[in-house]
């Protein structure tokens, strides 16, 4: 049994230590906001937080996550009022939406690092997240809007 905390709840899973966190979340724990896109850290759709850091969950072996705290989009605190999620809704970013949970988790991490990022900084941090539908112009706009919201809240 491997024990970890997911969205504030202690969970135990009986899988091999080399199994990626992504598949533990999806198939063993039924948490589906982290998406399988590529399996090789090329798309970012599986992005979650481990101990507060944005991580590609397809690359995190469950054995290494033991005892750590994982937060997926489902478990974000004050989700309904979250400035990034609100900005994503207001700007109607998603098309198919499959990559967007990963985009959002990455954007949250970006805004934790840089409170008011430039387009160049957005490009640098968000380029690991693929969007096949091409919502990049809206992702940029939503990140700027979320940054403004966060600053207004302070």
């Amino acid at each position, binding site marked *: 049994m491997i024990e970890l905390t997911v969205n504030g709840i202690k969970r135990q899973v009986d899988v091999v230590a080399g*199994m990626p966190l992504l598949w533990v979340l999806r198939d063993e724990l039924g948490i589906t906001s982290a998406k399988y896109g590529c399996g*090789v850290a090329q798309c970012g759709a599986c992005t979650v937080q481990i101990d507060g850091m944005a991580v590609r969950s397809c690359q995190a072996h469950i054995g290494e996550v033991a005892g750590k705290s994982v937060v997926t989009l489902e478990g974000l605190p004050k*989700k309904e009022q979250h400035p990034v999620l609100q900005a994503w809704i207001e700007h109607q970013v998603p098309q198919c939406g*499959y990559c967007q949970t990963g985009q959002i988790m990455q954007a949250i991490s970006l805004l934790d690092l840089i409170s008011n990022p430039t387009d160049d900084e957005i490009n640098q941090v968000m380029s690991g997240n*693929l969007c*096949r539908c091409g919502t990049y112009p809206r992702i940029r706009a939503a990140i700027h809007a979320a940054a403004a919201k966060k600053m207004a809240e302070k």
Partner: protein
Amino acid sequence: MGHMQNLSRRAFVFGSAAIAGGIAFGAYGSAEAAVPSADGNPLTAGLGPNSVTFNPWVEISPDKITLIAQHADIGQGVGSVQPIMIAEEMDLDPGQFEIRFAGPSPAYFNTGFADEFAPFVAADQSPAAEEARAKTLEWLRQAGLQMTGGSSTIPDTYEKLRVAGAVARETLKAAAAKRAGVAVADLSTQSGHVILPNGTKIAYVDLSADAAKIPPVLDAKPRDPSKWRLLGKPMMRLDIREKVMGELKFGIDMKMDGMLYASVKLNPAKGQPLKSYDAGKARAMPGVKKILEIKNGIAVIATNSWYAMKAADAVVCEWAPSAYPAEQADHWKVLESSFKPEFLGKEWRKIGDIEGGLKTGTLVEAEYRAPYVAHQPLEPLNGIGLVTDNGMEIWVGHQSPRFVQWVAATAIGLKPEQVTFHNQWTGGSFGHRLEYENVRVLAEIANQMKGTPIKLVFSREEDFLQDIPRQIAIARHRGSVDKSKIVAADLQLASTTPLKGLLERSGTPSKDPDGQLAAGLWNVYYDIPNFRATSYEAQGLSPSTTWRSVGASTSGFFTESFIDELIHAAGLDPMRARIAMCTVPHYRKVLETVAEMSDWKGPLGNGRGRGVAFVESFGTPTAEVVEVSMTDRGIRIDKVWVAVDVGKVVDPVNFENQVQGGVVWGLGHAINCELTYAKGAVQQTNYNHHEAMRIYQCPVIEVRGLENDPKVRGVGEPPVPPAAPALANAIFAATGKRIREMPFNKFIDFV
């Protein structure tokens, strides 16, 4: 070619060979074979007590209102705009109804294909063209062709869903009038209620039983757009919140009690069988329950998807060789030798004296190439299947519900009507979910695991390997210019056949020329007195299929690059020349609009350049200007302007998002994507080999929608075809280098 009337004089026989410029579906598409109820409404059979349905799109029970989304949602937003078109007429507000995807039924035949399939260019509105479209529509009705694609959702549903909503509204009013003993004329509707003259409100759901007892008011008319509350105005897509909150369940997120997981390893030589395999190592791996042999490979059944994928990877397979050339170089050789009479698809259009024209003035010749490209929506192919003694149930996101039934049934010896299909929200498609690689193997696997629900998920690598790609094509174009005018253009194309291939795999093979090879080739609206457009169909190459914008994705690049070459050879300005040559007034307006948006004033200089391209695809004229700069790190795309005329913009926010996404799709794949074969398998098996556009390369994209077209048009695909030629033309303007082959990064670096 001057005037559109010339086109209507084309000889035109409406037999199977003429439909679609070559689309005739086989017997399976017969509506009579599958009519589920006497009234032709598939909702009737499933109605609960005291419930009513007025048509195949509206269902009201005592506790809820359900609106049916006929077209599959592949990210383009139709899961939202379809119910909103009904809700607009019913005076329903978002949140007052549930949405369900349509099941398979000929009642959901796609009227939107009538224009694309009739053998006339879109701008031809002559009586002969309209008559052909009416006949095509009747044929579509009889065939019951239920398919999402060809940017047809809005053209198909714009009238019929608003009428469906109006019929529901007027019938509910009639039911309320009868109950209250007042005249219908004295009633109004608002926010899910009928309002009586004394102000009393009756909820629609409370009228369901009454409404079921009266005949529907079939002559109800939809309202004039000036009365719209929701449509045509910025509105919130109904799926946005759930997608942002991570709550929306895609097909890959579905789960069933007792379910086991499957993954597959299939012959990468597409369509060829398995010869032998050794699963010794795989059998002993964690979580593995079973290893099954299927027609073209093996499947692993395990306790989760990852165990299944790992074990499938560990199975050693010996494959039958590919039926197409094993090596990519030989694919190109076949194409090169396909410009011969025996491979003629069709001479789609001939105007004037092409040979004489080519001998006038300066001859310009150029060869263009476009490679195989993958679809690769971010949600890989998947599905859940359950086979019992009664038949099969399948939960999968797909664009052709009735063909899913046929493919699954055929794979395991059932009748199509024994397959129950439940459509799912999908993480993109771009044409991928018109094919059946997951459907066929899921049927085979579930059939061997009778009684157990099986969830199949393709690994990304397997998805790449089995992706039926976009067509590969070579164009050999000749033209001439004289006295600052284009005198002749002879456009010749050799290509694999995307639509024909899809139809064959759908169980409806066609012997007619592939109409998609005319797209972007024959629908050229410039005043060129001598013109010819000819397609050749290469034989024996990789299967190919429809990829966002289909034929126009390659021919749009070839044609608009070549027109640019002719314009430059004639010493003209690329924008002003296109505007001057454009023969269709409202298409000219699209070019004039993009010129105005971009403040086009000719060459920019200083290592900067602009290119323009104009392509009509699926009836939607689209013009784009791309601006690039040369930098030390390569070409940077600075800005894109797009003008597109859809007749009516029904969902403005989503419209902009779709157009921008189409541009990103067109540019990204033109820059860096191709699939190449080696030993019969594609060499690109994940996004690091087939990247398309990432955010750092994404320019600012300014969009304007025009509403001058006499018909309501779609916008999912039309922004794609002009993107690549506009970029290539911009690179030429900035650098003097003419790129005639995709992907462009083989010839020039990009930032």
